[in-house]
């Protein structure tokens, strides 16, 4: 059994380390400190932690103001409310003036589970990606999340890091180096490329193993920075395999699938299959059940690869 840990756990852990390193770092939360794990920061740095209550729009616009006073501001809440409810604050008063606000909400995607559609954001990558200058990061596991959360403190300007609620397999370790904007080739292959992000990286590696047994050679690229996209890595792989699958725990509209399709149609047209939530809202259920229900398992990826090869 693979060892599992939720990427949200990395938030509290990374903030603790950042808090010790950056005296100007401030954390804002919107009544979800335990769920997002920002409570860890609160316990060690009560003077630099502010709970805004259930008021995400206010939290985000206040973060912009704090940033103008030289603070490095990390914000909390769930991805639905931080990027949805507070979208326009992020667009107009954080991103337009390019202020130093780090948006790292948790509970993104369908694996939120039983809370259901109102809490399962499948649109957040699209919303953040469309904002000029926004960096969009979707970590694949706990360690990548932790490294990314820490790394972006060095970047001046808005960053979105998408974190999840459910425990997911740990793929890396503490020696992992996160480089913003760099995609990482996790598996060399020649027949088909899988561009994966977030929890779908693990499923893509499993699919690659299954397909290898059937004589299909699969390249797996972990695209944790969705914006700016590592164009070279994607085009390089597409030129080798000639077929690309994109897998993400997000709507097939507007996320990594769209980003890759846009890039390849502009610069290196090859057949692309997007795996994601097929333009639907979520529903209540267990995380694993939901991944199966919406067609986001390693089996679905293997099937898509075979269909693409048959084309």
């Amino acid at each position, binding site marked *: 059994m693979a060892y599992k840990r939720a990427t949200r756990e990395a938030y509290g852990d990374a903030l603790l380390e950042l808090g010790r390193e950056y005296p100007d770092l401030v954390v804002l*939360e919107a*009544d*979800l*400190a*335990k*769920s997002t794990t920002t409570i860890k920061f609160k316990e060690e740095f009560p003077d630099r932690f502010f*709970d*805004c*209550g*259930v*008021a995400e*729009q*206010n939290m985000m616009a206040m973060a912009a103001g704090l940033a103008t006073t030289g603070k490095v501001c990390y914000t909390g809440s769930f991805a*639905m*409310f931080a990027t*949805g*409810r507070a979208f326009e604050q992020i667009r107009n008063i954080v991103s337009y003036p390019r202020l130093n606000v780090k948006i790292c909400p948790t509970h993104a995607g369908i694996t939120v*589970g*039983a*809370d*259901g*559609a*109102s*809490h399962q954001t499948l649109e957040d990558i699209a919303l953040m990606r469309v904002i000029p200058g926004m960096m969009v990061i979707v970590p694949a596991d706990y360690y990548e999340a932790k490294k990314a959360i820490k790394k972006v403190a060095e970047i001046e300007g808005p960053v979105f890091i998408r974190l999840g609620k459910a425990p997911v397999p740990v793929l890396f370790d503490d020696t992992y180096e996160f480089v913003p904007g760099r995609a990482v080739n996790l598996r060399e292959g020649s027949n088909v490329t899988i561009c994966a992000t977030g929890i779908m990286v693990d499923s893509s590696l499993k699919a690659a193993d299954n397909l290898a047994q059937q004589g299909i050679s699969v390249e797996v690229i972990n695209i944790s920075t969705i914006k700016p996209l590592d164009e070279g890595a994607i085009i390089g792989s597409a030129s080798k395999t000639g077929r690309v699958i994109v897998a993400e725990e997000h709507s097939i509209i507007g996320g990594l699938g769209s980003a890759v399709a846009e890039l390849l149609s502009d610069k290196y047209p090859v057949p692309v299959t997007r795996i994601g939530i097929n333009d639907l809202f979520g*529903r*209540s*259920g*267990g995380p694993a*059940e*939901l991944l199966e*229900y919406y067609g986001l398992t390693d089996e679905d990826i293997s099937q898509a690869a075979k269909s693409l090869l048959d084309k």
Partner: protein
Amino acid sequence: MATPTVDKQATIAYLEAKARSIRWDVIKMIGTAGSGHPGGSLSAADIVATLYFHELDHRPDDPGWPDRDRFVLSKGHAAPVLYAALAESGYFPREDLWTLRKIDSHLQGHPDMRKTPGVEISTGSLGMGFSAAVGMALGLRIDKRQSRVYTLIGDGESQEGIIWEASMFAAQQKLDNIVGVLDYNNMQIDGLVSEIVDIYPATSKWSAFGWHVIEIDGHKIGEILDAFRAARVVKGRPTMIIANTIKGKCVSFMEKAVDFHGKAPTSEEVDRALVEIEALGPLG
């Protein structure tokens, strides 16, 4: 306050039994689902029981009846209290309650108007249900219907700006067919509302926003009944009932326990809670 009549005493006893029944179902439902929000469901049980079994003019066998009164659960995480009341009213079989939050259930983690008969609008994102209730009241008034709109909001939820945007609008439009109920349990997820971002004094805030305000004990059915009756004769202004409540009410180890905001009881805790509820009197 006038001494209750014998009739009123009987109504109160009837509604208390309904409230116990609803609390029983809330615990059983969340325990069976393994997740959900018991604290804020229990604090609202007396209010919701009084609405569904006395105040609302509704037809469980005809949920789309255009002249019905509407209830909007703006604090949508308390879905179990709504589902229990709907089942008890006859909107769907009580057995459905045990499917809460399961993948093929019509009972979603948060209320879904397209899946569950009797749910007036889909909520779960705090603050929006209240605005939607104001919109319903406006629409019903445009159509000259006599229907009334009731909506339950949380005190943590009242930190959302949209609550105050809607409050101003409703007063501006002199909507007197809407009644808000604030479930004032002074708790949210991260702790006490008074220690996070206080909404006190809620009474004078809503008065200043142009609402008629009535403050009650949200666990005394007699006071809830009186408040709803008083709201019916208020003209030209919306009414906000500030209901002082206890989060987790009627289950000793859930009362004022921050953890039970969004945590399911274990099966042993379910058993203990049900015994406590049954000991309070007959179920309705």
